[in-house]
């Protein structure tokens, strides 16, 4: 019969070890496109986003959410990743939008639906009612294809 004190001690050791490794791994994998692997884990590549299929909702100068953003999210990693939230990348383009819409008073509401992207897959995402155009948007804002710069956020 083995000593009874050995098992709890072993369990505590295993738990402590896992708790110590997990945060470290998270800190590494959540960094987009950079960093080094430790404990033998490869750094995850950031997802990429390109214009998706045609948007289904046209945007009008109503001051209310009327437009959608179509985006195709690609996971280059050999494992599934989750995109928790998509926010506007205000540092890109003209405040997050292509320059052709700079005068249109566009606003993007972050979408936190959460999308699981399978390994090596591309998922088409339609962010419905995520865009609002100011009611004072000039007529020159009609009929534009607007690029919306997005970034994933946790």
């Amino acid at each position, binding site marked *: 019969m083995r000593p*009874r004190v050995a*098992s*709890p001690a*072993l*369990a*505590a050791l*295993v*738990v402590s070890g*896992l*708790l110590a490794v*997990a*945060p470290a791994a998270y800190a590494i*994998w*959540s*960094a*987009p*496109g950079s960093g080094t692997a430790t404990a033998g884990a490869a750094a*995850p590549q*950031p*997802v*990429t*986003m*390109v*214009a998706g299929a*045609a*948007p289904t*909702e*046209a*945007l*009008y*100068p*109503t001051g209310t959410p*009327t437009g959608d*953003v*179509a985006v195709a*999210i690609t*996971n280059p990693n050999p494992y599934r*990743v*989750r*995109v928790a939230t998509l926010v506007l990348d205000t540092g*890109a*383009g003209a405040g997050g939008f292509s320059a052709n*819409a700079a005068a249109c008073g566009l606003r993007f509401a972050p979408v936190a639906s959460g999308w*699981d*992207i399978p390994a090596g897959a591309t998922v088409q995402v339609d962010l419905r009612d995520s865009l609002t*155009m100011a*009611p*004072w*948007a*000039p*007529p020159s*804002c*009609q*009929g*534009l*294809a607007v*690029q*919306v*710069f997005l970034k*994933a956020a946790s």
Partner: protein
Amino acid sequence: MIRRTAFPVVGVVAALLVAAASAAAYWSAAGGGQGIAATGSVGVVAGLNTDVHGTVASASIGFSWSPIAAAVAVTYVVERHATATTVVCTTTATTCTASGLPDGTARYSVTAEINGWVGAQSALTPVIKVASAAPAIGASPASPSAATAPTIDVSASGFGAFRCTLDGAGPVACSPPVALAALAGGALADGRHTFSVAAIDAYGGASQTATVTWTVRTDAPPITAAPPATTAQKSASFTFSHPVYVSFRCKLDGAGWSACTSPAGYSGLAAGAHTFRVEALDGDGIATRVTTATWTIS
């Protein structure tokens, strides 16, 4: 009760749960890129429809059109194009009735708008002429009038159909000359009467209304002085008057009616029974009822 020997198993399970929770966090991905959005545009209304064409009597015209494709509220503006362009309807519906249109020819269009975004103008309608002026009333009774079955002549350029109202009854279809006794269902009674008429176009639209008001008065002129019932006098004199009429016509015995004034005198009369009649004439020469006086010369 958990035996002490189970502690290692519990510990391992707890560790796996913690690890699994941490793994979920590992999958959170970063990255960025660009999506695509599209702004709408205000389309052209396919066409402006109306049930009327040519010349219309009504100053109101109904229009309808098909909505443009837009997922937001659209305002439609209907315009009248003549020497100047004016807005005659603004609505979010797809129908409107433009009222108070001025007389004249014009074409019409509709334009969609979304919060200041203005679409292209629709195709113009064919020319529509509004001729809403009230019909002309020609011959009509004088006022006061002794006529109990007068006719009234009406006319309107471009229209041959009319709708008439007499003393608030109706309106009924009528055609000139309009026989008022037929509208009234019999002779007009003494009193004030009002006749109204509107021209009617091929679509049932009505022009503005022309109205004439007059008074019918048929009471006979009273004789205020006449010979006694029996007299030896070979002459006679009659005094009469009327509250509103100033012309009279008199008749003695079998002679014909002739114009007369008060007092009306006759001389050289034969012995026997005589009858004097007098009636007043209105401005149109229509006679009132007759007052009769009889006497005998002995």
